[in-house]
């Protein structure tokens, strides 16, 4: 073993390099408050690893992207965890980057000779936000699709260069396959490579003058290894446990497939961009580009210029009231706008009064029955979204919650059938057997696609109401039908988006993780005490 070690050492000096990295001096000694940067770095690596794993299943096509993501979440063992951790780590990464930046600002750690580290850090914040923005649409669900639509609309409305920017960055004005491909390329190649490159420079620029360390009590000097390493590990293990917990308890919501003509869903940007969304409400018309181009641009330029705007060598925040005050004001402004944007409107419009009544759909009922399984029946819809579609198209006849009871004179039953509980003949449910979800979906789907005429009462004429064909006439889109099907299953107690192959049950896996983390805490606590004594 040592011979292999020696052989390597002779060629690439691995041990020497590692020792050099670990011997970093920390003025004032190791502290838990110095762990934000390393936690950000490790969260980025977590995103890289989970992202690469997702690439093994994901396909960036408009027809397959949505289904492939659902396949990862529901059918791939531990897919729920890999996708969940990637999803939540993006949020945690933004929080950590911003936290790292705020701390560096407050503690004056950006001051000479560390200006370059600060600049590279600001660029990393911008790149991180770019990764969040381009990652959202990749699942090609309704939220992602509309985020792309609005992003493309925004880019195109920049005066003068709008069309050029839009075509160059997003692949054209029409949101479709090329838009998805462009977002995919940016998210999985361009931005990660940029982040890696800037990150490398950020670390080199950081090591050159060394850690800034504590502001006061700098007489004691600590070393990175082992105390700071243990602290970094404790914090990151906590972040990882949190990510597992979020993935296990807050499964990423299934919002339904991209629907280009959907009026029941209101696009809202991902949370880091809510402040800009809110700002746009105040800057309408010709001033609009000021809101989403000039304000962010000026913000970034000001951030980059911080080391020159606040150039006195004094580091303590208490002794730089003007800089800290102005900065706090800017941060508060962004935060207030963000909270207002989040609270401004519900994610959906109440469509029950606005959407078309289904009756005249029969007026255009001329399309022949499409043979074979429909697109909707093979797509996992979003039940929450389906509830709104149900409210627009179905509730008039099938009643709230599908409880039925609406009279249908002339039909054999006398009322329109309830769909909660659903007729077992249609669901294929057999006593004592687990329900076959696909059979249930197919049963509901046939009615939604083709419609049906109820059996008539032999003594009277035809039934007053018949079920219109929603799918074949395009009265409803296939995404809408998929969502309604998910909702109909939900009110019948069946989860359309259940995890089929979890690997380990999500909650159980979290308890294991938590148990492991407690052990890490105990072990590192003991190690830290020991390190302190020596």
């Amino acid at each position, binding site marked *: 073993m040592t011979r292999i070690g020696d052989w390597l050492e002779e060629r690439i000096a691995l041990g020497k390099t590692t020792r050099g990295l670990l011997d970093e001096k920390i003025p004032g000694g190791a502290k838990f408050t110095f762990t934000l940067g390393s936690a950000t770095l490790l969260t980025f690596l977590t995103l890289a690893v989970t992202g690469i794993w997702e690439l093994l299943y994901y396909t960036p096509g408009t027809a397959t992207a949505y289904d492939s993501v659902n396949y990862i979440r529901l059918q791939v063992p531990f897919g729920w965890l890999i996708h969940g951790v990637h999803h939540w780590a993006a949020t945690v990464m933004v929080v950590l980057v911003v936290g790292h930046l705020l701390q560096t600002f407050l503690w004056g750690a950006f001051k000479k000779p560390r200006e370059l580290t600060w600049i590279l850090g600001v660029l990393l914040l911008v790149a991180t936000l770019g990764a969040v923005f381009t990652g959202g649409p990749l699942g090609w669900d309704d939220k992602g699709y509309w985020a792309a639509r609005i992003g493309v609309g925004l880019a195109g409305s920049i005066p003068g260069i709008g069309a050029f920017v839009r075509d160059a960055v997003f*692949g054209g*004005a*029409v949101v479709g396959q090329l838009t998805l491909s462009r977002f995919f390329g940016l998210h999985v190649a361009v931005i990660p490579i940029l982040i890696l490159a800037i990150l490398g420079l950020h670390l080199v620029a950081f090591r050159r003058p060394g850690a800034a360390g504590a502001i006061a009590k700098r007489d004691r000097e600590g070393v990175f290894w082992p105390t700071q390493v243990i602290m970094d590990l404790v914090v990151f293990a906590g972040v990882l446990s949190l990510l597992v917990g979020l993935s296990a308890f807050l499964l990423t919501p299934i919002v339904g497939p991209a629907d280009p003509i959907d009026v029941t869903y209101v696009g809202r940007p991902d949370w880091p961009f809510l402040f800009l969304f809110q700002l746009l409400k105040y800057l309408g018309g010709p001033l609009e580009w000021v809101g989403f181009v000039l304000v962010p641009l000026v913000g970034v330029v000001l951030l980059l210029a911080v080391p020159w705007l606040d150039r006195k060598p004094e580091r303590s925040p208490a002794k730089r009231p003007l800089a800290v005050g102005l900065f706090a004001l800017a941060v508060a402004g962004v935060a207030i706008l963000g909270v207002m944007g989040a609270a401004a409107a519900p994610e959906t419009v109440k469509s029950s009064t*606005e959407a078309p009544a289904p009756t005249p759909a029969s007026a255009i009922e001329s399309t022949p029955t499409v043979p074979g399984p429909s697109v909707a029946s093979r797509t996992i819809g979003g039940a929450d979204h389906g509830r709104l579609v149900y409210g627009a198209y179905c509730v008039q006849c099938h009643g709230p919650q599908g409880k039925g009871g609406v009279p249908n004179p002339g039909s054999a039953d006398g009322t329109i059938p309830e769909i909660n509980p659903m007729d077992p003949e249609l669901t294929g449910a057999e006593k004592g057997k687990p329900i076959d979800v696909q059979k249930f979906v197919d049963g509901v789907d046939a009615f939604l696609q083709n419609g049906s005429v109820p059996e008539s009462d032999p003594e009277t004429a035809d039934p007053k109401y018949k079920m219109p064909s929603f799918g074949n006439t*395009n009265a409803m889109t296939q995404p809408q039908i998929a969502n309604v099907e998910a909702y109909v299953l939900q009110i019948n107690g069946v989860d359309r988006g259940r995890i089929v192959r979890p690997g380990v049950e999500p909650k159980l896996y979290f308890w294991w993780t938590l148990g492991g983390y407690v052990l890490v805490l105990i072990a590192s606590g003991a190690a830290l005490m020991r390190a302190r004594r020596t």
Partner: protein
Amino acid sequence: MADAPDTGSAVTRRGFVGWAVGMGAAFVGLVAGVPLIGSLISSNKATPGAYVQVADVALLPTGEPFALSFVESARDAYEVAQLPHSVYALKKSDTEVVVFSPVCPHLGCQVYFNRGSKTFVCPCHDSVFSLDGARTSGPAPRGLDTLPVKISKGMLLVQWIQYEPGVSQKTPV
């Protein structure tokens, strides 16, 4: 030959070598860069579709916008996709129907018709349009776009066109 400094000439040997390397680099940059940047400008233009039959005019309500949806087989880059579209048809008489695109001329969200206030409303940034499509409030730079229509043998035909959002002129994308 000794490495004599050629003081008389304006171009030193070192300067010439630097200039030559720079030229070479510029050549490589241009040959590689021009096509790389050129290929980024995607030309995913929407080709105007054919007229699609969407409804029987006699069955449309008069004086109130009615949402109609239809599917059009259209080219999306290298794919032929079934693209769904929805429109609002406002029948004025059996021979006159105005068809609005529901794409908000602000940023391209989907407007809905509010039956209570008889207005079209965009849920994204609260632009409001009157029954005839004119903008009444909100950030939209123009009114709702009307689409080309034909009425043939009592059937309404619509041509789907997507217009540029965010600009005051109605221009196809």
